[in-house]
C-alpha cells in the first residue's frame, strides 16, 4: 500500500504524462515499440510461411527497394514533426536523376555530375524552405507547387528519351553489396545519415527546437527557438537527401528519365506516419519511422512473392495506415478517459503532500 502511494505521489508531481510510468514501461509501451513489434512479427511470419522469403536474394532486393524511402524518411520525419510537409521530394529525386543523366551525357564524370545534382537538390530545398519559413506560405501549397515545377523541369530537360549507359563502376556500386554479404552498399551512406539525423533530432538543441515548433511555433519563437532558420535548414536537408536518393535511383536502374520515382512522396509520407509521427507535428521518433519503412517494404516483398496483385498490396498498406491513424485517436481517447477516472483517486494524496512536506 505504501509503495502504491509513493508511485501515485510521484506521478502527480510530474506534469508530463509521459513521465508518469516507470522507465521500462515508457520504453516498451510506445507507438514505436508497437510498430517495431509488428514489423518483427511480419518478418517472422513471412520467413515461416512465404515461399522463398528466406532465400539469399530477399534481403538484398528488399533493402535496395526501400533504400530511397529510408533515406528521404530521415529529413521528412523532422519536417513533419515541425508540423510542415514536403511533397516535392519525389520530384526533386526526378530532377537530380535527370541532371545526373544530362550532365553525364555532356561529358562530365559521375562524381562531378552527382555533386551538381546534389547542389540542385539543395537549391530545390532552399526554395521550398524560403517560401515556407520566410515568406510564411503553407508548406502543403508550396510543395505541391514545386512538386509540379521540379517534375516539369526534369521532363523538359530530357524530353521523351532516357539517358542510359552510365559508367559501370558506378552502377555496380549502386547495385553492389558489402563484400560477400547481402547488405547493399547504399546502406553505408544510409547508416551515416541515420546516425546524423538521430543525433540531430534526439540529442541536440536543434532537435528540441524541432519538437517545440511542432507543438506550438509561436511559443517556440518566444522561448528563443530560431523557427525560420530551423525550417529552412530542414527543407534544405530534405532537398539534398532527396537528390542523393535520386542519384542512387538513377545508378541502380542505369536510366535517367523524367518520370523516375514518380509517386515516391506518398510512400515516404505513409511510412513516416505509420512510424508514429503525428501529421500535426510535435510527436514522433526516428526508430519508429525506420521500422515503418521496413514494415511497408516487407509487406510488399512478401505479398509479391505470394503472387498477390499490387492493388491488394496497396489495400493492405492503406488499411494499415488508416488503422495506425485511428489507433492514435483511440489511444488518446482511452488515456484521457483513464486519466479523468484516476484523477479523483490521486487528487487526495497530492493535496496532502505539500502539507506532509511542510511537516
Amino acid at each position: 500500500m505504501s509503495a502504491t502511494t509513493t508511485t501515485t505521489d510521484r506521478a502527480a508531481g510530474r506534469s508530463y504524462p509521459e513521465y508518469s510510468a516507470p522507465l521500462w514501461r515508457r520504453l516498451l509501451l510506445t507507438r514505436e515499440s508497437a510498430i517495431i513489434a509488428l514489423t518483427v512479427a511480419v518478418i517472422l511470419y513471412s520467413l515461416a510461411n512465404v515461399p522463398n522469403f528466406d532465400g539469399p536474394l530477399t534481403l538484398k532486393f528488399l533493402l535496395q527497394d526501400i533504400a530511397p524511402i529510408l533515406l528521404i524518411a530521415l529529413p521528412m520525419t523532422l519536417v513533419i514533426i515541425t508540423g510542415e510537409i514536403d511533397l516535392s521530394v519525389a520530384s526533386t529525386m526526378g530532377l537530380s536523376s535527370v541532371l545526373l543523366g544530362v550532365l553525364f551525357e555532356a561529358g562530365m564524370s559521375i562524381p562531378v555530375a552527382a555533386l551538381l545534382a546534389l547542389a540542385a537538390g539543395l537549391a530545390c530545398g532552399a526554395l521550398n524552405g524560403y517560401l515556407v519559413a520566410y515568406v510564411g506560405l503553407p508548406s502543403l501549397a508550396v510543395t505541391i507547387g514545386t512538386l509540379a515545377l521540379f517534375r516539369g523541369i526534369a521532363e523538359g530537360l530530357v524530353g521523351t528519351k532516357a539517358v542510359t549507359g552510365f559508367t559501370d563502376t558506378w552502377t555496380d556500386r549502386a547495385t553492389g553489396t558489402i563484400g560477400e554479404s547481402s547488405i547493399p552498399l547504399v546502406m553505408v551512406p544510409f547508416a551515416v545519415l541515420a546516425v546524423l539525423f538521430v543525433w540531430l533530432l534526439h540529442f541536440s538543441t536543434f532537435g528540441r527546437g524541432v519538437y517545440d515548433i511542432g507543438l506550438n511555433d509561436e511559443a517556440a519563437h518566444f522561448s528563443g527557438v530560431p523557427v525560420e532558420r530551423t525550417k529552412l535548414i530542414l527543407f534544405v536537408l530534405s532537398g539534398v537527401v532527396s537528390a542523393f536518393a535520386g542519384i542512387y535511383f538513377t545508378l541502380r536502374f542505369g536510366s535517367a528519365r523524367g518520370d523516375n520515382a514518380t509517386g515516391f512522396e506518398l510512400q515516404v509520407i505513409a511510412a513516416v506516419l505509420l512510424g508514429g509521427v503525428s501529421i500535426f507535428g510535435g510527436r514522433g521518433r526516428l526508430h519508429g519511422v525506420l521500422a515503418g519503412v521496413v514494415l511497408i517494404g516487407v509487406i510488399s516483398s512478401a505479398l509479391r512473392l505470394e503472387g498477390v496483385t499490387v492493388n491488394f498490396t496497396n489495400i493492405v498498406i492503406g488499411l494499415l495506415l488508416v488503422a495506425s491513424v485511428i489507433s492514435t485517436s483511440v489511444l488518446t481517447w482511452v488515456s484521457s478517459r483513464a486519466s479523468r477516472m484516476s484523477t479523483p483517486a490521486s487528487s487526495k494524496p497530492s493535496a496532502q503532500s505539500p502539507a506532509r512536506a511542510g511537516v
Partner: protein
Amino acid sequence: MKLPSRRATAFAALVLSGAMALSACGGDDGDSGGSGGGGGGGGDSLTMLPKNLGNPYFDTSTAGAEEAAEELGISIEEVGPEQASPDAQVQYINTAAQQGVAGLIVSANDPTAICDAINEARDAGTKVVTFDSDTSPDCRDLFVNQATAEGIAAKQLELIADQIGGSGEIAILSASANATNQNAWIEMMEAELESNPDYADIELVDIVYGDDEEQKSFDETEALLQNHPNLKGIISPTTVGIAAAADYLSTSDAKGKVALTGLGTPNQMRPYVENGTVEAFALWNPGDLGYLATYATKALVDGDITGEEGDTFEAGKLGEFTVEADGVVVLGEPFVFNADNIGDFDF
C-alpha cells in the same frame, strides 16, 4: 494504477490485432500462393510480366499464354505493376529471381533500366523472353516480336493516307513519352512521310502523349482538334489512345470529318467502327503473341532451342517458327480490322 494497465491492454490489443489482421491476410494468400509457389519449386513454372495490369491488351496476351500453358501442361502466373514504370517492373523481376521460376516472359517498360535485374534472374537460372516491347538484345534470351516496326509504321500511314485521301494535316496521339515501341514507330513514320512521294501532301503537325490513360488521351484529343482546326486525321498507335480518341470524336462535331486510325483491339473499337467514327485500324492478335511467347519460353526451358539464329520450334496451332538474327521471333504482318471483319474477332 488503472491508467497504465489500461494503456498496456490497449497497446497489446493494437499490436495483436494488427499482427493478426496481417497474418490473416497472409494466411489466405498463403493457401492460394502456396500452390503457385509449389509449382515454382518444380521446373515448369513460368511468370508473365506485362507492362502493367488492367490493360485489355495484356489481358488478352495473358489469356493466350494461359491457353498455351494448358496445352503444354505447365503453370503460368501473371504478375505486374499498377503503372507502367521500369522501377516497379524491376521488383517483379527480382521476385521471379527469388522464386527461381523456369521462365520469365516480360514486356519491357524500358529497354535498359530493367537489364541488370533480368541478368540477375538469368544468373539464377531463369530463361527470359521479352514480348511486345524489347530490351537490349544482350539481356534476354529471345524476343517475340508482334510485327516488324517497319510493317506497323507503314500499315498505319497506308491506312491514314487512304482515309484522308492522300493530303492534309495529321497528328499522332501516342502512349507515354518514354514508350519504346511507340517512339520507334513514330520515328519510322516521320522518316517515311519525309521520303515517300505518295505522302508528299501529308503534314504531321503534332505529336501528343496520352500516357495510356483514358482521361488524358481523351483530353489530348480535344486539345489537338482545338489547336489544329484543319486537322484531317489522327494516328494513335496505342490501344488506350485510339479508344479514347474515338470516344471523343464520336460525340463531337468532328465525327466523320477527322479520320482516326492506329492500333486498337476489336472489342474496344467495335462501337466506333459500327457508328462510322473509325473506318479501319490495325493490330496483330495479342492472344497469339502471348501464345507464341509461351511456346518459345517452353522450348528454351526444355533446351530445344538456345535463341541462336536459325533455331526452329513448333508453336501449337500457330505452326513452326524460326529464330531470326539477334534472337527475334516475328509473329507476322499487322492485320487490318474494318466493318466487314470486326465481327469475327472477340478480344
